[in-house]
């Protein structure tokens, strides 16, 4: 069958119209699917292990969500935003994902022509975000309390000592989450180690082992590894206190359980955000968000000591201590 000349011209017209729509049809219309990766740049500090693995896992997650993979831009210690802008433009980057403390510092100075998402940071305050959407590595308190409820259903009260300059935003979220979980959150603020120690010294004897649990947030002031942790762990062991943490290392030292970041999942979230932005979607809202992509670690020895039946919880424990 021979195509009529009019039909040929119609086919060309349709292609051209569709092409014109494609060019004018938003951000994604500029890039073919294979070119998305070249528009997403990941700025990350060059760190040694074990931090390198964390960053690699996050970047790997981003790559899973960004076709062609994101452009990796390692940050030198002296790298500044001004230095990077031209490089990012030359690379035709449109979305920038920054990781780590240095990444956040650079992100704050980047031109707003880029879509910027920051992550891989701890102890970040809303003030630090400066209008950026920051996905913190701090586990979501709601998920923490949910796991607490599963592992220790008898607990009614959760005590926490924190430095408000680091974790005020998180405690706010925690209060809501506690309420949601039917728990009472008793918060003690301490602005230095001496005050924190005094606080722990005061509260630990008061705790009811049956109904109360102590939450150790990621707080460099109040959760001192050299002084507070030995005190807390010793007291908890001796008095069968339930202690959970936002730091997986604490489980190794004797805390019952902890939630810790699922870095690859975090990367995937970041990749989704980036691709969504390129496709015309929004970026994370300005401010700090707790991390919902978490894994569960448990200390079986502590569990046995406390009489907690892990098997009965039917939870999936991603990391178990002591390691077999």
């Amino acid at each position, binding site marked *: 069958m021979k195509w009529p000349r009019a039909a040929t011209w119609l086919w060309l017209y349709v292609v051209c119209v569709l092409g014109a729509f494609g060019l004018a049809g938003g951000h994604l219309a500029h890039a073919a699917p294979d070119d998305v990766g070249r528009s997403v740049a990941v700025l990350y*500090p060059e*760190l040694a292990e074990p*931090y390198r693995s*964390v960053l690699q896992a996050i970047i790997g997650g981003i790559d899973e969500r960004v076709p062609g993979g994101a452009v990796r831009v390692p940050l030198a210690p002296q790298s500044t935003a001004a230095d990077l802008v031209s490089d990012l433009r030359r690379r035709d980057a449109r979305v920038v994902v920054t990781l*780590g*403390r*240095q990444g*956040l510092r650079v992100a704050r100075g980047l031109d707003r022509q880029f879509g910027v998402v920051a992550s*891989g*940071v*701890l*102890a*970040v*305050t809303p003030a*630090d975000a400066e209008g950026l959407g920051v996905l913190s*590595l701090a586990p979501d308190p709601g998920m923490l309390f949910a796991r607490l409820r599963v592992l220790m259903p008898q607990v009614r009260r959760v005590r926490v000592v924190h430095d408000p300059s*680091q974790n005020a935003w998180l405690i706010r979220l925690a209060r809501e989450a506690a309420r949601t979980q039917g728990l009472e959150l008793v918060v003690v603020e301490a602005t*230095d*180690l*001496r005050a924190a*120690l*005094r606080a722990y*010294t005061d509260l630990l004897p008061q705790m009811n082992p049956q109904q109360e649990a102590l939450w150790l947030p990621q707080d*460099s*002031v109040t959760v*001192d*590894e*050299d*002084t507070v942790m*030995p*005190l807390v762990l010793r007291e908890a062991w001796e008095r069968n206190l339930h202690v959970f943490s936002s730091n997986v290392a604490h489980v190794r030292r004797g805390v019952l359980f902890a939630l810790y970041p699922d870095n690859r999942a975090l990367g995937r979230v970041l990749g989704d955000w980036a691709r969504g932005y390129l496709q015309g979607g929004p970026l994370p809202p300005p401010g700090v968000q707790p991390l919902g992509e978490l894994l569960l670690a448990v200390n079986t020895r502590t569990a046995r000591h406390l009489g907690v039946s892990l098997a009965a919880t039917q939870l999936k424990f991603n990391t178990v201590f002591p390691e077999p």
Partner: protein
Amino acid sequence: MSRSSTHSMLPPFRWARWLYRTTFQRQLSVTVAIGVVLMAVLSSTAASWQGSRQIRDNLMQQGERIASSLAMQSQLALLSSSPDNVSEALAATLTYPDVMRAEIRRVDGTVLIERGAGPQPHTGRAALPASGEIQRVHEAYLEGETDELWCFIAPVWTHPRSSPFEVESAPEEYLGYVRLIHSKGTLTRTKANIFMVNLSMAAIIAILFLGAVRYLGARMTRPIQVLSGAMTRAERGDAGVRAVVDGPQDIVDMAQAFNRMIAVLQDRGDELERHREHLEDLVHDRTEQLQRAKDRAEEASQAKSAFLARMSHELRTPLNAILGYAQILKMDRSLSARQVAGLNTIHSSGEHLLMLIVDILDLSRIEAGKVELQPSPVVLRNSLQGLVDIIRVKADEKQLDFSWTCDDGVPVTVLADDKRLRQVLLNLLSNAVKFTDRGAVSLVVRLGGAAAIDTGLCTVRFEVHDSGAGIAAHDVERIFEPFEQAGDSHQKAAGTGLGLAISRQLVRLMGGDIHVESQPGRGSLFWFEIELPVMADGQSAHTLPSVWSQITGYAGYRRTLLIVDDVPANRLMLVDLLRPLGFDLLEAGDGLAALERLRLHEVDAVLMDLTMPVMDGVEAIRRIRAEARTTLLPVIALSANAARDAHDEAVQAGATEFLAKPIDRAQLLQVLGQLLDIDWVAAPPGMHG
């Protein structure tokens, strides 16, 4: 090099002299010992110093670590102001060795807790470190030290964990400090131990090393000593010595070289020995041959001497009688002129014969070297005068002019053998007269050569001139040969022909020689020069009276003489000679009989013949001298053997004088006069008529 020369070359420094005087092994041992001891001490000191530095650093690091550790554990206590939180750690800290005291202080320096019994460590600096100073450091440091202890300070800080994911790192907080007093006891002990261990090890190594050195030194020096001993033995003449080849290679080479050298020397020595033995044998053979020849010559000489002596004796004995009786007969005044002439002929012939015998004997003795001059002071002019008188008679007989002169410079008295000098001159003058038929004969005596009287010597020249036939030049030497005369046989004059030969020998014996200046037909000159010691005036010799023949007796009491001779004719001749002079005479036929006579009679002198049976004269003289009574008795030995041996033998036996036979009357009387102090009485001249 001799030991003394070696010592003379010793250097002036004591140590250098020590090097010369000690053995190689001792020098090696001492040098190595000094080196090893120095090495031991220095290495021990160095090792101890180095070790102690490391230990000091380690101990200081340990102290700082202990302080830091305690500081780490003190955080809770300081934060909570609760000493209980650190008391266990503090107790654990004090269990460390050398930790004497530990303090934990707050920021303001007040003590939170302190433990330990050490001294309050206010070392050097302020009692309490300034907090500002401490707050600048995080590590432990040394606050100060004394000889006994260190004081460490370790600040206590909080250590909030910080990760690259945290936006803001939590600040560190200064909580206080730990002061740790750490003793240096371990350091001190360890230093001493290291030093002692090193020193001990070095000493052990040194001893082993020294032992090895001594062993090697001995191994090296023993072959040298062996070699030296071998050389010493070789130096002493042990030709068969060999060095034992042992020890290091160079010593072995030396020993082998020495052995080869000794072997070569031994071969040469053996060869020389063989040559020497051969030479000795040769010399021995030659010596034996010479000895045999000498013995034969001596035997021949002795035989000749004996023959001559015997002949002399045999001839003299009859001549003694002939001449004696001729002299006796001539004293007989009753004889006729013809008888007297006959007696004179007998006497002169006998004398000629005697002269011949004497000349032969004389020549023989001179040629045999048995004649010795017997110098005595001589008044030269007197002696010559007697000679001149004799010759003048002979010259007058031939009607020749005879003159003699003696220069004034000639010393009056000289030391000379007068008899021999007169013999020579008499011979020369006699010859001059004998061979001069007309003309003149003269004797000239003067100083010859370089006169040197001041030195006590003078050279006297004797010249005998004649105007005789002269001597042809080719005859000049021949005339000195025995039994030779110059000229034709018909011209030969009477004589023995021995005179010139004897004269030349005698002059040579006196230190001169006879020279002849002559031309045939123009006369001759015989002259000689002899060197004579000059004597002071007054030392004149006895001069024989010229009138012995006129003696008829002696003054004073009568003397008794003993005549001992085995030949009765000889005894009788002497009796006849002496009795007319007034002597009482006893006779004996041998020595034993003579001794018997002497035992029975008092005698004034003995005339003792030497050659006798039963007991010879020598033995008899010896026994006479042995007797106290006759010890001083004058004994005149008589012998027909005029040889010197007979004279010497008699004198040694004790003879006072010696007279040769035939007895000369004048000589006998002179000797008797001297021995018996006799004043002779002579007949007036012309008594013979």
